[in-house]
């Protein structure tokens, strides 16, 4: 029984909503609008007030090679991390859901990176990536492959970040797929077995479509993370070498709090928001066609 519309009840509802709404608007919607407006002004400095400069920030941004590098990095990063971590997560969920010996230990191992702070694990991975004395290079040494400067080479630095991100998030996504898998009625499996369907066929035709709702949730999460989680950059490379491992949000932080150029940082934030919106719309549209609700 939904409540009909006596005024007092509506007021009551609004009052319930208000505190959360105020805070949410203050820290999400207001900054979005505020940042957008700020991108049309210059940064105020001692002795030089902020003034309206139209699209100048945007033209500087377009002329800024670091911006393009960072944008490209983030897109490569997202396009690499998201699919790989989702596929790994599904694999993990399937393994852990089935009759794997030592199942709960394996599940723990997969999930542990999720509850550790990225900043802490980045320190550990810094050692892994250290040339010559680091773990990766020692393993390479066993196979007599020469040492490599993983974080010091522009062609591998971003890859290192991606590996770390996949490692961190795959276990997290696994949990959601696991939940979904456990929601699949076992009768389906039995029926398929009776009909002589192969495992892969069953997976593709039955399991995967039933995972679609979860897939949407995971994809949204993964996308947000690949633009939001930049902690590891602070420890591993600080964006180097030569911005090869810098991501958009890290560059925004650098510009805003390293150079104190808040106007330019706002401009960059606008770009970030546009990307996030586009990603959200695309994913919802695409998934809408494929999601099968029961």
């Amino acid at each position, binding site marked *: 029984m939904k409540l009909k519309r006596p005024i007092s009840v509506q007021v009551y509802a*609004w009052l319930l909503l208000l505190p959360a709404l105020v805070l*949410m608007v203050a820290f999400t919607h207001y900054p979005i609008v505020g940042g957008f407006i700020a991108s049309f002004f210059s940064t105020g400095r001692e002795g030089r007030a902020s003034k309206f400069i139209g699209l100048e920030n945007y033209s500087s941004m377009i002329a800024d090679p670091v911006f393009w590098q960072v944008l490209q990095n983030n897109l490569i990063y997202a396009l690499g991390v998201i699919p790989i971590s989702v596929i790994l997560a599904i694999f993990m969920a399937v*393994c852990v859901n089935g009759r794997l010996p030592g199942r709960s230990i394996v599940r723990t191992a997969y999930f542990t990176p999720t509850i550790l702070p990225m900043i802490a694990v980045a320190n*550990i991975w810094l050692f892994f990536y250290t040339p010559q004395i680091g773990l990766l290079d020692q393993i390479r040494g066993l196979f007599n492959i020469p040492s490599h400067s993983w974080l010091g080479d522009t062609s591998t630095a971003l890859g290192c970040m991606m590996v770390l991100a996949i490692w961190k998030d795959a276990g997290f996504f696994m949990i959601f797929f696991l939940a979904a898998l456990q929601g699949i009625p076992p009768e389906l499996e039995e029926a398929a077995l009776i009909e002589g369907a192969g495992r892969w066929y069953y997976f593709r035709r039955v399991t995967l479509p039933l995972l679609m709702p979860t897939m949407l949730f995971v994809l949204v999460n993964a996308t947000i993370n690949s633009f939001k989680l930049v902690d590891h950059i602070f420890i591993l490379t600080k964006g180097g070498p030569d911005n090869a491992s810098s991501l958009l949000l890290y560059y925004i932080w650098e510009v805003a709090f390293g150079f104190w150029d808040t106007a330019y940082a706002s401009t960059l934030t606008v770009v970030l928001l546009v990307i996030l919106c586009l990603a959200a719309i695309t994913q919802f549209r695409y998934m809408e066609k494929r999601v099968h609700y029961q």
Partner: protein
Amino acid sequence: MINRGSDWMQKVEVLAAWLLAFLWAAPLLYAVWAAFHPMDFVSRFVLTAPLTLDNFRSAWKVAPFARYFFNTFVLVSITLAGQFILCTMAAYAFARFEFPGKEIVFLLVLVQIMIMPDVLIVQNYKTVSQLGLVDTILGIGLPYMASAFGIFLLRQAFKQVPKELVEAARVEGAGWLSVLWKVYIPLAKPTYLAYGLVSVSYHWNNFLWPVIITNSTETRPLTVGLSIFGAPESGVNFSVISAGTLLAVSPLLIAFLLFQRQFVQSFMRSGIK
């Protein structure tokens, strides 16, 4: 599992799963190794290497971990408390009431799912600064208290409360808040637990926003403390850093290992739409 295919395939799969698990656990295992052995053995895995607690002693002396723990504990508590209160009220409004503008507000909430305060650091810093909350623990938690995710989850949970129970309470003369307190909240306890665990994990490990907001030891949470602890100018000492890292992650890690099932269930539950 159906139709195993060949036994061999199955063995490969098991091996792959185990290898992956080892890879996934390796960094933490390494940190444990490095923390308990002296610096010489940071890159040499000699099984008979001497164990030592010196690294932990150094780490504890170098950075005020006790204070960082306290700050983090206060931070996640305040944030969670705020989230529980605000999100409960908002979810209740969405779940049980009709009012003008409901769809618009719901859309606004949806926006926050995609665009979190974390990416709006520039403007949010300005806001918090104007509120005079820079370098306070409240300043760290405030932007997160109205959590769209929390509102969603709780709304979902509230919607599943059977109408008969509400009716029964109303018949007995209970007011709306009373109904909330007596009927909805107790029935949504599993969701609260789930959300609580997710929130605590998230905010315990949050870094970017806290590092911007905090300036001093009195407010610095563990993640920020770890970042400056691990990056002195002259160079890193891996054993001490590993020890410090273990100190910082141990509460959450131990809690996780002890309450694994609850943790996993929470995260699972929070994903179900």
